[in-house]
């Protein structure tokens, strides 16, 4: 069986939950060759996750320049050329797609992005048009380059001791110089794309995310925002859910003061359970809500947060 190359997604030494998911999915399809491209001193977390999720082989490459993309493209391309893998899997996200796009060109491979499931023949299931349509696609040329969305499957541990593979990497220069980097301020809340519960706020919060955050904290949830809220500067762009924000698929999505525009729905429509709080009974978000409360979020949300707290104690 040919190897399946998996790029371990990590961020300043912190390995994402999606890496465990991707390794789990890949294990069902072949012998996993995990690849991690790290900055100095960041190797251990990637090694640990590869071993925890059953990688058969592992290559750890120290990035030669600070560019977030080209070192990974160089590493995956060199390894793919040396080992003819059955497929190359990456995590769907801005970084993963960028690496995948370049890699597909360099290897002469077909590419599929945003897969939510992979079959044994590497055909991929995608959910398109904001979740309204499900397609199955297949790469027909070269080793398939596929990016898989976070939260597509449950990570299941399977200890292994991966064989360390040293493959010479043909480094190219990106021409890009990173002149400053400020690590993200990590709050105590889970990452948006990894969270099993998300509480989001929109224009209806009028800039006050207090109630949204307190319900999120009661539920152990991540905080999301509509574009109206991020455009207004009430919440960072990295928390935006929707077409030009993140696509999420949590167990529970709570929309507070969000109308449910098509571009917002595109990013959350496949959530398992959807709850909406909106004072306009005709807001389109109610068309997909499993449970909707027509009311003022400043009354409903704090009461719900208190109710959740009360059940916990």
């Amino acid at each position, binding site marked *: 069986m040919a190897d399946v190359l998996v790029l371990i997604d990590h961020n*300043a030494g912190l390995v994402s939950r999606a890496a465990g998911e991707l390794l789990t999915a890949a294990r069902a399809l072949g012998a996993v060759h995990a690849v991690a491209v790290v900055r100095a001193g960041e190797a251990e977390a990637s090694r640990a996750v590869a071993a925890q999720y059953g990688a058969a082989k592992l290559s750890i490459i120290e990035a030669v320049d600070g560019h977030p993309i080209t070192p990974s493209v160089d590493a995956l391309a060199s390894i793919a050329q040396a080992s003819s893998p059955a497929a190359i899997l990456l995590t769907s*996200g*801005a*970084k993963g797609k960028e690496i995948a*796009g370049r890699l597909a*060109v360099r290897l002469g*491979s*077909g*590419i*599929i992005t*945003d897969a939510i499931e992979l079959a044994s023949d590497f055909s991929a299931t995608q959910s398109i*048009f904001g979740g*309204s*349509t*499900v*397609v*199955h*696609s*297949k790469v*027909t*040329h*070269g080793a*398939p380059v596929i990016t898989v969305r976070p939260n597509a499957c449950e990570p299941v541990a399977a200890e292994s001791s991966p064989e360390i593979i040293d493959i010479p990497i043909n480094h190219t220069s*990106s*021409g*890009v*110089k990173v*002149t*400053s*980097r*400020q*690590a*993200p301020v990590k709050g105590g809340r889970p*990452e948006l794309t990894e969270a099993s519960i998300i509480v989001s706020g929109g224009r209806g919060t009028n800039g006050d995310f207090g109630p949204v955050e307190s319900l999120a904290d009661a*539920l152990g949830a991540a905080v999301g925002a509509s574009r109206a809220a991020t*455009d207004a500067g009430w919440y960072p*762009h*990295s928390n935006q859910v929707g*077409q*030009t924000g993140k696509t999420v698929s949590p167990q529970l999505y709570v929309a507070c003061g969000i109308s449910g525009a*098509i571009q917002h729905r595109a990013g959350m429509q496949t959530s398992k359970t*959807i*709850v909406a709080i909106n004072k306009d*009974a005709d807001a389109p978000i*109610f068309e*997909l*809500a*499993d*449970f*909707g*409360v*027509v*009311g003022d979020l400043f*009354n409903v949300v*704090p*009461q*719900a947060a208190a*109710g*959740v707290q009360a059940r*916990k104690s």
Partner: protein
Amino acid sequence: MKFLVCVKQVPDSWAEKKLGADSRLDRAGVDAVLNDLDEYAIEEALRICESSGGNGEGGEHSITLLSMGPDRATEAIRKGLSMGADNAILISDDALAGSDALATSLVLAKAIESSGANIVLCGTESTDARMSVVPAMLAERLGWPQLTFAGELKIDVTANTVSIKRMTDEGVEEMEAPLPCVVSVIEKINEPRYPSFKGIMAAKKKSIETHTLADIGLAADQVGSASSWSSVVDAALRPPRSAGIKVVDEGNGGNELVSFLADKKIV
């Protein structure tokens, strides 16, 4: 400086989209518009030019729009021209139908190579394909540096460098690259202008050069659905989500919500 902005005509992002019988996006029933996200790239090019020497007649810089698409894509291109871009190149050819991102980037890269552009600006995604890979593919094909997801963009004409600031999951990063370079910009970078009446009138006289594949030195079998390296096996509509319970808050809405979550075993 010669700016080139990649723009695509897409079905209106406000419309419900569906697949046609050929498993391709059914474009017939939907209004075709300029990809909203490309307007930010046009606007950014305009702002940079306006702040240093201007574009158009008598200006130091020029802004060319580049698009691959059917002949009717000229409608979307006109909008970009009426915002203030100087001229446009449209690559249109029957053989291009069904091209995937790889073929699209091949065509655009060919056109860019012969355009003499110093900088290529793109949106972050086309709202129909939503792959967000074309800018990276262009950089790879051209062998140019790429600066993506720019939230701020600066060009230093004397040093011949571009720098961006962006906020990603990695944090806030500032990066710099020499020209020529591919840059993609996010929707937070600016607020695109509405074309003025004067702009709309002026756009009617601006040139849209249309090229076929042969004109740019590519063969029909390098592009289109026949050469696409991925294919759709099948497609199906997901059953629409049906609305569930809706209650009106009369002082107890938050508690009712908690009961619902408890029934679902979420709390």
